[in-house]
């Protein structure tokens, strides 16, 4: 007897696992920006510029993940 049956794509589970890393990374970036702003408020502009680029680069991993989740969604 099967107690429970789940139907769906394993690719989405893989994407959920793959989103952990970028999630931690984006969190670390903005944690550092908040700390830096608290220590030196006048440097906020310069830090935000770098932070957005770092955010975009880190987020790219999650983006590749969601693309691959749809590519392998049929498996």
């Amino acid at each position, binding site marked *: 007897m099967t107690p429970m049956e789940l139907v769906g794509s394993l690719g989405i589970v893989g994407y959920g696992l793959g989103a952990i890393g970028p999630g931690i990374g984006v969190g670390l970036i903005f944690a550092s920006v908040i700390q830096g702003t608290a220590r030196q408020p006048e440097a906020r*502009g310069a830090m935000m*510029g770098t932070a*957005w*680029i770092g*955010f*975009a*680069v880190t*987020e*790219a991993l999650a*983006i*590749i993940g*969601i*693309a691959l989740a*749809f590519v392998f*969604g049929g498996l």
Partner: protein
Amino acid sequence: MSGFLSGLVPLETADGFEAPGVHSFDVPPLFESVPWFDKYMLQAIISVILILAFWLIMARKNALVPSKGQYLGETAYFFVRNTIARDMIGHDFRRYLPLLIALFSFVLVNNIFGVFPLSLLPTPSHVGWPYGLAIMVWVIYNGVGIAKHGPFGYLKHTTLPSGVPAFMWPLIIPLEFVSNIIVRPITLSLRLFANMFAGHLLVLVFVLGGEYLLLHSESIVNKTAGVVALIFSMAIFGLEIFVQSLQAFIFTVLTAQYISSAAAEEH
């Protein structure tokens, strides 16, 4: 006009609720005789007209004491000029300002179409539009670099950071080449596409799922869940407005960053 309304109708089939998925983005053409003219194309054309009208009206009447409209236009202009172009590119930023402003307004208006009540479909959620934008940006930043350093000078400039010892070259040069020439346009387009795609999918799940739970189910628990989902979809719309503006900003910032790194002087 069935193509224009597609994406808004509940996805109900004979055997219950059909979850929104990739197929929700396959909109039929607006007229049967013109297969390439679909809702995405119509939205892009409308956005170009809107943007042209906005900037032409803003640029025409310039007064020393600005009116409210001129103040709005100048704020938008100075946002791109100071926050994106000047901070990223540096002293030679004026040459690239028209490109950056056009990119920013095009991406922003097309993203906002995702929450605008009459359209409710972000144009970049069809992958062709980000691809086109990214190819244009790729050609421009490589062209800027080649015009500045020459073909071989640019190749050396972009694949070999200065100060790398010679025994690291076999590792660094392929890595930098893949990162700067190949991966950059892919991530630039996929970032915009995936954010718009995932955001629109989220909206579809909440709105269509809530509608189905509320109107097509019997139990009171399901109806309550449907009401909660519909109310919560308002918060999702708010999140979407934020994400859409942020992605327009990031797309322009990264374009400026790529141009700046391609045109940078040797240190």
